[in-house]
C-alpha cells in the first residue's frame, strides 16, 4: 500500500464501563469487516492474554487494522485501538485516546451510564475526540434504550438519539455502527512531509525484534532506516521495520505517514526506552516540540513479593525482569525481610495491576508467592529537613526523627442509585473521605464526589462499595496529591517477636480497630503449637490488641495396628508436609497465607 488517502482512514477507540461490551463489539467489528472469518474468531480477539480473557478485562492496549467497504462504495481503513478498561491504567487509556480521532462510547442498555463511563467520556472529550454513542445489549429483557439515550444526552451532553441500538453479542445492527464510524468519526490530519512526530501509545517486547513500538503518526513519515529518537527518554534507534496490525499479527509495510497507526521496530532492547506517551521523531529532521501530555508513569501501590520457597528467589527475579520487558509500569527492587527472607519490593499502578502481576508470576512462571500487605507511598518529613518516600513500612524512621508525614489522596467519583447514598456516604466517612459534593444525574442516580486517602481504598474499598450498594455503585478515581496525616506504624508481634512482613502504616484513628481485626484474623490462621502463642498488635511499642492461640492440647492417634500402618503414616506425613510450607518466625510456624490476611480484614465485623 504505497499511498493511503488520509480521508479514507478512521482511527478510533471504544470506551465503556467494564462489562458493557467493549471487547465484544470490537470482535464484531473485526468479524464484519472481513479480517477474520467467524470460524477463525476466538471470542474477544483483542484480549491476548489468557488472564485478560478470563477476567474479561483488557490489560494492555491492543490495536487492529481492518478494511471496510462502506455503502458509498469506498474502502476505509479502520484502526481500532482497544484501551485498557480499569482505573489503574488511566494513563494508558489517555495515551490511547490521544492516538485516536474519535471514540465509540458503548453504554449498556440496561445499566446506563456508570462512573467509569463518565470518566472515560470526559477523558475522550479532553482529547477533543468526537464521541459516538452506541447502545449495546438491546437484546436484554431489561434493556431501556430510550432511557439510556436520554441519560447520555442529559448527563454527558452529546447527541444520542440516532445512536445505533445494537447487540454486540448477536451482531444485531453492528453494520450501522460501521457506517456511523465512516460518517461521524473524522479523518486524521497532518502532513506526510512535515518533521516526524509519532505518539507512542504502547510497546511490547519481542525476543526476535526487540521492542515493538505502537504509535500514531501525527506528522511526517517513517520508514525503514529512519534514524529515530524518543524525545523524553532520549533513546535512539534506526528503524528496521514498520508495519500495521493484523489480527494478532504484525504486517510489515513500506512506510507509515501522518494519520496512520502502526508499529516501528529498531532493535531496541528495553521497553523503558519507549515510554507510553513519548514522542518519536526523526533525528535527521527533528520536530521542534514533543507531543503534549507525556508523563512518567508512577507506581501508586507497593508491596513485597517473596517466593514461598526461598530457593526460588533467582526465578522470581528472572520472572519480574521478563514481565518488566513488557510492562514499564512495573517496578521492583530487592529487599530482605526477617520473616520472609529475600524478595522484592514492587511498585504497581494499582491493586488490579498488582493482582495481575501476581497471577501472571504464579501461572506463567509457576511461582508460589507470599505477598505482604500492599501500601502506598508515604512522605516522611524528618526533623532534619530530609524527606523520604516510604514504600516499605519497615523502613519508617524512629518516631523521634519524624516531623510529620503525608499520605496520597485521590479524588473519587462514585455513581450510585439514590437509595444507597446513605450507606455509601457512611462507607466514605469510615474511610476518612472528605465530602466534596453530590450531583444528581437523573432522579434516581447521583454522583458523589469525595477526596479519599489512597491507602483506604486499595484493599477492599471496591468490594465494600459493591456490597453496600448491592452491586449498583460504580467508582472511579484520580490521583490528587499529598496531605499531612496522623499516620502510625502498626506492628504485629507473634510470640513476642515483631514480624516485619506484617507491619503496615495506618491512620492513628483506625489503628486500634485494624490491630484488633488483624490479631483476630491471625489467630484463625496460625495453627496451634505445643505452646501458647500470644498475637499482639502494637503502635510505637505499646500493645493495643491481643489474641492468643492456645497450646495444642492433644494430637494423638488412639490406635495403630498392622492393617493401618501405611494409612496412619501418610496421615502424619501430610501433617508434617503442611508444616514445611510454613514460615518459621522464632519458634512459631506461620502459614504463608497469614501474611496476606491483612488484605482480607472484613469490611463489616
Amino acid at each position, binding site marked *: 500500500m504505497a499511498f493511503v488517502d488520509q480521508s479514507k482512514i478512521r482511527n478510533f477507540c471504544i470506551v465503556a464501563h467494564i462489562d458493557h461490551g467493549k471487547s465484544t463489539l470490537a470482535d464484531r467489528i473485526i468479524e464484519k469487516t472481513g479480517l477474520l472469518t467467524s470460524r477463525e474468531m476466538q471470542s474477544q480477539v483483542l484480549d491476548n492474554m489468557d488472564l485478560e480473557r478470563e477476567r474479561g478485562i483488557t490489560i494492555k492496549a491492543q490495536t487492529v487494522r481492518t478494511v471496510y467497504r462502506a455503502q458509498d462504495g469506498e474502502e476505509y481503513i479502520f484502526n481500532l485501538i482497544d484501551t485498557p478498561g480499569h482505573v489503574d491504567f488511566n494513563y494508558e487509556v489517555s495515551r490511547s485516546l490521544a492516538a485516536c480521532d474519535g471514540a465509540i462510547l458503548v453504554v449498556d442498555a440496561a445499566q446506563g451510564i456508570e462512573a467509569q463511563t463518565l470518566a472515560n467520556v470526559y477523558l475522550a472529550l479532553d482529547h477533543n475526540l468526537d464521541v459516538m454513542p452506541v447502545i449495546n445489549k438491546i437484546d436484554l429483557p431489561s434493556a431501556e434504550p430510550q432511557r439510556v439515550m436520554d441519560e447520555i444526552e442529559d448527563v454527558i451532553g452529546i447527541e444520542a438519539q440516532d445512536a445505533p441500538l445494537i447487540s454486540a453479542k448477536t451482531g444485531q445492527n453492528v453494520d450501522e455502527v460501521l457506517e456511523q464510524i465512516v460518517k461521524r468519526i473524522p479523518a486524521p490530519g497532518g502532513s506526510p512531509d512535515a518533521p516526524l512526530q509519532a505518539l507512542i501509545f504502547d510497546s511490547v517486547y519481542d525476543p526476535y525484534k526487540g521492542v515493538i513500538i505502537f504509535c500514531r503518526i501525527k506528522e511526517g513519515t517513517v520508514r525503514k532506516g529512519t534514524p529515530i529518537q524518543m524525545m523524553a527518554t532520549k533513546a535512539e534507534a534506526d528503524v528496521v521495520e514498520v508495519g500495521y496490525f493484523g489480527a494478532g499479527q504484525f504486517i510489515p509495510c513500506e512506510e507509515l505517514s501522518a494519520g496512520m497507526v502502526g508499529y516501528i521496530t529498531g532493535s531496541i532492547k528495553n521497553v523503558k526506552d519507549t515510554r507510553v506517551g513519548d514522542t518519536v521523531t526523526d533525528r535527521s529532521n527533528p520536530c521542534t516540540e514533543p507531543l503534549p501530555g507525556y508523563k512518567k508513569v508512577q507506581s501508586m501501590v507497593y508491596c513485597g513479593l517473596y517466593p514461598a520457597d526461598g530457593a526460588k528467589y533467582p526465578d522470581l527475579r528472572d520472572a519480574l525482569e521478563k514481565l518488566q520487558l513488557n510492562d514499564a509500569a512495573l517496578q521492583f527492587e530487592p529487599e530482605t525481610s526477617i520473616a520472609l527472607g529475600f524478595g522484592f519490593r514492587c511498585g504497581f499502578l494499582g491493586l488490579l495491576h498488582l493482582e495481575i502481576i501476581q497471577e501472571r508470576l504464579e501461572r506463567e512462571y509457576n511461582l508460589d508467592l507470599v505477598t505482604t500487605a500492599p501500601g502506598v507511598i508515604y512522605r516522611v518529613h524528618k526533623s532534619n529537613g530530609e524527606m523520604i518516600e516510604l514504600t516499605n513500612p519497615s523502613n519508617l524512621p524512629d518516631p523521634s526523627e519524624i516531623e510529620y508525614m503525608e499520605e496520597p489522596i485521590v479524588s473519587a467519583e462514585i455513581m450510585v442509585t439514590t437509595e444507597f447514598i446513605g450507606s455509601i456516604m457512611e462507607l466514605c466517612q469510615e474511610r476518612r473521605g472528605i465530602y466534596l459534593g453530590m450531583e444528581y444525574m437523573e432522579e434516581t442516580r447521583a454522583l458523589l464526589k469525595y477526596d479519599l486517602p489512597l491507602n483506604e481504598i486499595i484493599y477492599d474499598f471496591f468490594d465494600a462499595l459493591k456490597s453496600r450498594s448491592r452491586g449498583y455503585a460504580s467508582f472511579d478515581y484520580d490521583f490528587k496529591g499529598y496531605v499531612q496525616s496522623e499516620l502510625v506504624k502498626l506492628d504485629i508481634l507473634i510470640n513476642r517477636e515483631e514480624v516485619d512482613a506484617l507491619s503496615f502504616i495506618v491512620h492513628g484513628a483506625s489503628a486500634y480497630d485494624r490491630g484488633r481485626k488483624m490479631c483476630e484474623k491471625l489467630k484463625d490462621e496460625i495453627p496451634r503449637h505445643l505452646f501458647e502463642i500470644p498475637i499482639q498488635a502494637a503502635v510505637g511499642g505499646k500493645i493495643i490488641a491481643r489474641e492468643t492461640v492456645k497450646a495444642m492440647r492433644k*494430637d494423638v*492417634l*488412639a*490406635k495403630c495396628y498392622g492393617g493401618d*500402618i*501405611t494409612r496412619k*503414616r501418610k496421615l502424619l506425613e501430610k501433617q508434617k508436609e503442611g508444616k514445611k510450607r510454613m514460615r518459621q518466625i522464632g519458634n512459631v510456624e506461620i502459614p504463608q497465607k497469614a501474611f496476606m490476611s491483612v488484605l482480607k480484614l472484613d469490611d463489616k465485623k
Partner: protein
Amino acid sequence: MIKNSDNMKKPLEIYVHIPFCIRKCAYCDFLSAPAEREVQEAYVEKLLEEIRRSEELSGEYNVQTVFFGGGTPSILKGEQICRIVEILRQQFVFLNDTEITVEVNPETADGEKFLQYHEAGVNRISFGLQSADDRELKLLGRIHTWEQFLESYSMARGAGFQNINIDLMSALPGQTAGNMRKTLEQVLTLLPEHISAYSLMIEEGTPFYGRYGEHPELLPSEDEERQMYYDIRDRLCADGYVRYEISNYARPGYECRHNLGYWERTDYRGYGLGAASLLDNVRYTNQTELSEYLKGSLKGTEERLDSRAVREEYFFLGLRKTEGVSPGMYREYYKELIEKLQVQQLLEEKKGRLCLTDRGVDVSNYVLAQFLN
C-alpha cells in the same frame, strides 16, 4: 533349599480378617459389613485356600501369635473358626505358647462357641464392649447391652478363658468424666487381664463423621478428652494394670503379644479381605473388594520398605509403647531431633531407651511425625 530347624526359624504373627458383622457401628471405618451365611461360608473357603497357598512361609517361620479380627469374627460358626485354626496348624509350626486371640462381640457368642474356641486352642478373647452404659452403646450403634455382655463374659470365663481383653471407648458424644469412671468401675469388678481404652476417633466416611465432623462442639472438648484419658490411666494403674502402649493396659504378663509385634515390626502375614502383611520389609495389602476376593483374586498392593522407611517405622511404631525404643544404631542419625524433643520434654531416656513423656503421649502425632522424613 535347606529346611531350617524349628528353633532357627523367625517368629511370625498371623492375622485373620473376618469382614462381617451383624450391623455396622456408627463410628466404624474397618473393612466390614453384614453378609449372608452363604457369603460367609464362601469367604471361609477362600480364606482356607489362601492359607494353603502360602506354604512357602512355613519353612521360614514359626507362628508366635494368631489374631482373628474384624468385623466380628465371632459371627462365624464355632466350627468355622476351629477349622481355620486347624488348617493354620497343618500349614505352620506353632509354638507351645502361641497366643491365639478371637475378637468377640457379646451378642454373637454363646457358651458353645467359647467351648469350641477353647477346644481349638484359642487362648485369648477380646471383647468389644466399648461402654457399660446402655445409652452410650445405643448411640455408638452397638447392638448389645451391658447385661448381654456380662452374660457373654461369664460364659467365656466358664469355658476356661484366663486371658480376656475388654475394649472401651472414651470421649463419646455427651460422655462426661463421671460416666466414663462409672463404666471403668463396672468393668474392673470383672477383673479382666487386659483393657484397651481408646479415645473415639471420628473417621471419614462413617455416620459419625457426618454427625460430628463439622461439629466438634458436640464432642467432649480436648481438655475433657485428655482428662478422661488420664482418669483411665490413673485408675487402671492404681489397680495393678500397666499401660504398655498409648491405649493398652494389662496385668503384668498379659500384654497382647500380637499387637506388640506390630509395634516391634515382627513379620506378620494377614489372611483375608484387605489384610496386610509385613514380610522381610515388604508390606502387602490384599484385595479389598469382597466380590473379587471371593473369585480368588488377592491382587492387592505391595510396598517395599527401604532402609529409611524401616528406620522411620521403627520409631513411629516403637514409641507408641510405654517402654519406648532403644535408639541403637539410629542414635547418631536422630541426634539433633532426640535432643530437641528432650528439651521440649516430649521424650525422655530411661535405661537407654527413648520413650514418650506424658505430654509426649498427648501430642504424640507431633512427636512421631518428627521421625518421618
